[in-house]
């Protein structure tokens, strides 16, 4: 006789042996005791929870002549022949292999014959989710009203694949995942019976890795026994399940707290090199994070923890981690878990998660440190920017009124300025540019750059020629700044009122607002930008003082230079005061 796997040897033969499903086994026993059994049962649940075992025990119990309290005796001829799978009246069918209508028709026909040696004819249809639609429907009528003394037991891991019409004709029992302590108890019993030595601590490790499946647990136990030969040790259990020691997990968490990405990656590398299962690592981290959360919230109840053992190091780590960080860890690893299942680049996914967490935990903690201020600050900022916008709007309103009043004076000067500047180097209109920069946003610029080619297409050929060697460098809803490669083109663009009007018009169509064109040469642009930034800083520090000072200075400069450029600049910069200045200068 060759060696038999533990889960085959120790398949439960009594309802009381089925671990972790007390509610179901008790219900079945009571039904047997009171002779109120149904003619069709559906057993569903994850792998290794005892569906097939329960079906077999039930078929024995209902046929056993020496039934005691709903349990089969396991000694009579009928019980034994069922256990060996020899009894003609208990038919176990693998629905995955016999999934066609033909096979079901066969069952239907044979079900009409009375049982030969036992009292009931029991059909156990395992993996029933694999039946074809036709087969399911062929089964429907028989399942609803089978001949007397025929019982159907359907077992499956995937109840969602069973048609509702089948489910409604059966009594459904949902087998739960077996709790860890039940698995441990059962393994203790089996090891005791097999007379194998074991370390107490090794069983929880195996039970956790089994994820609620008794067969998984026994498979792993089998493997551990064959590895350790004499004695089931914790180290072997850890190695076979690929579990991490608490020490290693704590080191990993410590690396996250210290934002030591290098250390985190090193830990990851070393444990993968040891052959740890990446998926188990992810699960261990999530479970451990859960334990940390529970520990923090329950102020240290050890019995609620699933994995962690409370020691000095564990306490220290839980003190340092905040729940936000732990949530972040769980979230990231949850995502990684999804990715891992569909990929064979486990190592890289884990590295990404590690880097992200070690870097992010940093930012999260930093945020927390100054958390009281930033909230208030952002609110303040919002308020300030709102005020600024309002102030600017007011400024512009005033300016409009002014230009309306001094409508005659300004154009005259502009004409003059043209004559003067025609020969000289181009001087950009800094004020206007600064105003644009005040409102400039990245979004506007991006928008503008996107429509720039369209804009070019809308212009006439000569206009396009002027703008050919130019690029927009800044934009706001009120205006845009364009840099030109050549002075001469820059000059032309500024002077060409037709062009300016057209651009404004076209932009209105393209982006929905009228923007004024401001030109600048390529060399000047960086200088102007720097100047603007400088000014902005000054404004921030000595806002009111400066304004007053400048307004005093400006009249003097005016007289000296009389350059019309400066006049316009002053108008736009200082608003009200300039009205007076102009009057005196004219």
């Amino acid at each position, binding site marked *: 006789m*060759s*060696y*038999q*796997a533990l889960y*085959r040897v120790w398949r439960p033969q009594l309802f009381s042996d089925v671990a972790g499903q007390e509610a179901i086994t008790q219900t079945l026993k009571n039904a047997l005791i009171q002779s109120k059994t149904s003619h069709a049962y559906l057993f569903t649940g*994850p*792998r*290794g929870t005892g569906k097939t075992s329960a079906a077999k025990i039930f078929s024995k119990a209902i046929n056993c002549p020496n039934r005691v309290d709903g349990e089969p005796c396991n000694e009579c001829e009928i019980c034994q022949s069922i256990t060996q799978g020899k009894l003609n009246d208990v038919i176990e069918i*693998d629905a*995955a*292999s016999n*999934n066609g209508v033909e096979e079901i028709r066969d069952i239907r026909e044979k079900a009409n014959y009375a049982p030969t040696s036992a009292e009931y004819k029991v059909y156990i249809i*395992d*993996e029933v*989710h*694999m039946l074809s639609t036709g087969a399911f429907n062929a089964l429907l009528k028989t399942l609803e009203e089978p001949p007397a003394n025929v019982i159907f037991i359907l077992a499956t*891991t995937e109840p969602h694949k069973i048609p509702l019409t089948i489910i409604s004709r059966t009594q459904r029992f949902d087998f739960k995942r077996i709790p860890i302590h039940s698995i441990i108890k059962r393994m203790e019993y089996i090891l005791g019976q097999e007379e194998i030595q074991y370390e107490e601590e090794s069983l929880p490790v195996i039970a956790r890795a089994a994820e609620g*499946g008794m*067969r*998984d647990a026994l*498979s*792993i136990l*089998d*493997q551990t026994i*064959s*590895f350790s030969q004499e004695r089931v040790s914790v180290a072997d259990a850890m190695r076979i399940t*690929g579990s991490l020691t608490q020490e290693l997990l704590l080191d990993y968490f410590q690396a996250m707290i210290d934002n030591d*990405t*290098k250390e985190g*990656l*090193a830990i990851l*590398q070393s444990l993968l*090199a040891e*052959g740890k*299962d990446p*998926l188990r690592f992810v699960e261990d981290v999530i479970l451990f994070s859960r334990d940390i959360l529970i520990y923090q919230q329950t102020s240290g109840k050890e019995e609620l923890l699933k994995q962690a053992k409370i020691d000095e190091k564990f306490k220290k780590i839980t003190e340092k981690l905040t729940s936000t960080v732990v949530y972040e860890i769980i979230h990231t690893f949850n995502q990684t878990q999804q*990715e*891992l*299942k*569909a*990929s*064979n*680049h486990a190592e*890289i*996914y884990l*590295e*990404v998660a590690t*880097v*992200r967490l070690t*870097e992010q935990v940093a930012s999260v903690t930093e945020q927390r440190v100054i958390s009281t201020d930033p909230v208030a600050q952002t609110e303040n900022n919002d308020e300030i920017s709102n005020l600024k916008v309002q102030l600017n709007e007011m400024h512009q309103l005033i300016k409009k009124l002014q230009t309306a009043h001094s409508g005659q004076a300004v154009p005259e000067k502009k004409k003059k300025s043209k004559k003067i500047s025609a020969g000289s180097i181009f001087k950009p209109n800094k004020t206007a540019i600064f105003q644009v920069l005040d409102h400039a946003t990245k979004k506007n610029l991006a928008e503008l750059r996107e429509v720039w080619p369209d804009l070019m297409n809308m212009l006439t050929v000569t206009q396009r020629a002027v703008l050919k060697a130019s690029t927009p460098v800044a934009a706001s809803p009120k205006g845009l700044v364009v840099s030109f490669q050549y002075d001469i083109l820059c000059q032309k663009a500024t002077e060409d009122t037709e062009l300016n009007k057209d651009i404004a018009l076209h932009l209105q169509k393209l982006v929905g607002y009228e923007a004024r064109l401001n030109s600048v040469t390529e060399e000047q642009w960086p200088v102007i930008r720097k100047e603007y930034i400088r000014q902005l800083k000054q404004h921030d520090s000595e806002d009111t003082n400066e304004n007053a000072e400048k307004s005093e200075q400006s009249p003097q400069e005016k007289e000296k230079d009389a350059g019309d450029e400066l006049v316009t600049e002053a108008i736009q910069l200082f608003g009200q005061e300039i009205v007076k200045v102009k009057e005196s200068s004219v």
Partner: protein
Amino acid sequence: MRTIIETSDSKQVALVQHFQHLNRINQLGHAYLLEGSKGTGKKQTALRVAEAIHCIHPKPDGESCGKCVNCSRILTNQHPDVIEVEPDGLSIKVDQIRSLKSELSKSGMEGNKKIVIINQVDTMTVGAANSLLKFIEEPEGDMLFFLLTLSKQRVLPTIQSRCQIFHLQPLPIQLKIRQLEARGLSTSQAHLFANLTNDDDEALQWDADEEMTQLVQSVWRWYVFLEKKDMLAFVHVQTELMSISKDREKHRLILEILLFLYRDSLRLFYDEKTTILAFIDKQAEIKKFTNNRTALKLIQCIETILQARKKLESNVPAQGVYEQLTLKITQG
């Protein structure tokens, strides 16, 4: 003919010895799931165990002699009691499992244990996997299943729970590099190929392949464009990458190589001295690029590439995938 044994010797010695030991004390289970990436010696391990079981003159420690009739027949794939199942086309079909089952319902040809080796179990159709379930749980008669897979996550959990699972560890990368160097590869090639594959033969093939060298260089240029945020990267996809790579395998390699370039970046970012880089000769240049990057930006790039890989696997046209990748990395 001895090559199988020699390579498996160097790959999974401990595991094979473990099985031989179990065989000697008659404690072999009936179903084992061997998981491991390509070239980790899954099949060799299974064959070695089959030899050990059937060997006429086994050595005292349970090791097969490798010379007797049975051993040589297993080596040449001719033993009637060692049955191998390979995917028929892209997957293992129900009919294959059915015929396997009817084959196994007969008693062993030579009266011994029957050994079934199923390759790429993950490619089994739903029907095939399910019809194997009941059979593998309580096989009738004396038999031993070896299920081989690249990733156990893709195997039905109900099958997993019926097997003892072994994860076959690939050789440490340092060792792989040394082996490849011993077989005549240059240092830089050995580093790159050791990262890309576990399979020595594949690496040697690549080394001799002119197209592969071209591919690597092309991806390198792509990487440089990407890191400089040069939009030529976009043009590069059309002009070079698309013209070099004709089949899916090449496309997969392109992303793989790019992935390792960014992974090297990440490692160099943290100044790791211990780890083995894929692009050992380009270290200085990669390092220069990483200086203007943050770690979060780098892992964003890596994630983008991983996403691109997924898209490629689900049959999105390669050019679109590359172009999207280019835009995401240069503008992100």
